[in-house]
């Protein structure tokens, strides 16, 4: 049976891994490579590296960082987000080691390139990032570059529904970094009922994750900040989520469990 996934997220700004709070406040954590290496060792089901200042600054993808991550020899599937402008960008990212890529700004700017990426890499390699918030009676979609929210356009919804994209990364951006902050209503009210959802933003408690994972619409939960507070956080979450259709917690050690005698 296909398992649901627990995805470890590393957010990068100015070349440093950061904790992000509500898309506006950031605390440095260290080198992205170190965090990614930990997630790989802890047995995350996928690792998402999102570089949040590339599109805004028009810098394109951070190939250099991806090259450094590739050199780590990761044994965990890697998802890349940040600065993707063209089909050629996406192809190069895959060649450098990304297994899947996330588009966000491109959904606002250039849907033809999104279709092109899907044709070139396959829909299974493509994820749509939708930072959402619940505003009274409707879902609002944030363009993080202009800090403005609008309703999700029919064109974008139609594109996602058509199968050009395999999953939606549904981010509760307002509650990002707030413990137990994720608003379940975002999933419940998301209009495309048969599109797989990766829930992200303010997910800290295993009971909260359990509720989300019980939804047939949610294929994965993604956790960023809350993995940074303790060792082996992935395994601990998985142990607490026993009974959910997740891959069991795995432990990798370079040391033999049998003592030399």
């Amino acid at each position: 049976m296909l398992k649901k996934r627990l995805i470890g997220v590393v957010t990068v700004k100015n070349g440093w891994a950061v904790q992000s709070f509500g898309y506006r406040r950031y605390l440095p954590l260290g080198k992205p490579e170190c965090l990614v290496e930990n997630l790989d060792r802890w047995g995350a089901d996928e690792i998402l590296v999102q570089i949040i200042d590339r599109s805004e600054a028009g810098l394109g993808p951070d190939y250099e960082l991806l090259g450094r991550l590739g050199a780590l020899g990761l044994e965990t599937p890697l998802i890349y987000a940040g600065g993707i402008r063209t089909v050629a960008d996406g192809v190069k990212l895959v060649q450098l080691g990304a297994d899947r890529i996330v588009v966000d700004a491109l959904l606002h700017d250039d849907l033809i390139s999104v279709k092109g990426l899907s044709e070139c890499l396959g829909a299974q390699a493509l994820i749509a990032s939708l930072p959402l918030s619940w505003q009274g009676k409707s879902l609002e979609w944030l363009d993080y570059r202009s800090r403005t929210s609008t309703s999700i356009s029919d064109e974008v919804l139609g594109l996602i529904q058509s199968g050009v994209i395999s999953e939606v990364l549904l981010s509760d951006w307002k509650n990002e970094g707030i413990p137990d902050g994720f608003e379940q209503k975002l999933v419940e009210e998301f209009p495309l009922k048969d599109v797989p959802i990766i829930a992200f933003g303010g997910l800290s408690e295993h009971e909260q994750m359990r509720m989300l994972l019980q939804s047939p619409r949610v294929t994965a939960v993604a956790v960023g900040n809350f993995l940074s507070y303790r060792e082996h956080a992935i395994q601990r979450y998985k142990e607490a989520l026993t009974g959910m259709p997740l891959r069991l917690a795995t432990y990798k050690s370079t040391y033999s469990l049998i003592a030399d005698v």
Partner: protein
Amino acid sequence: MSYVTVGIVDYGMGNHASVIHSLRDLGFRVRVSADTAVLDSTDILVLPGVGAFPAAMQALHQRGLVGYLQQQAREQRPIIGICLGMQLLTSASHEFQYTAGLDLIPGEVVALTGAKWHIGWNTLECVDSEPLLQASDGEAFYFNHSFCYQGPSEYQACITRHPASFASVIRRGKVVGIQFHPEKSQAAGRTLLKNLILGLTHA
């Protein structure tokens, strides 16, 4: 001590870094090349791949590797195809258009039934007592694809369910195709790669 040297067939599709790291971690020597002279000096060939079938076959043709790989299979050289590389081993694919494959394992590549794609970790079920894969029976591996193998059951070594069953490992003699990514499947992937490579090269 004799070392096994793995030749990764470089035809310009996808990323080889993880495969190279996995193989080196397991203690194998690795050569990456499209040059048949270099590939000839290795013990086993690995055909990785990410992308679309027609473009991949075109890339193999452009590098003169189609005839070479077919000849190697006839000479009983071990070959492992991974993900798109597995699909290339078959007779043809229906992805975008009908495209002839390497035809090393009879069967065709068709769209998954009952699902648009198959993304994530899923379980391997060995369908017979395939000794090279027995240690991986019941283990979970990372899949990321929307097309799959359809062909004679005699070539289906392992299946996976999503929700319908499909062949996740196919084998004809010393040619083996793996639909998932062992190089991205952590400890389970390492074990499978090691058993397959040692088993095929020492058979």
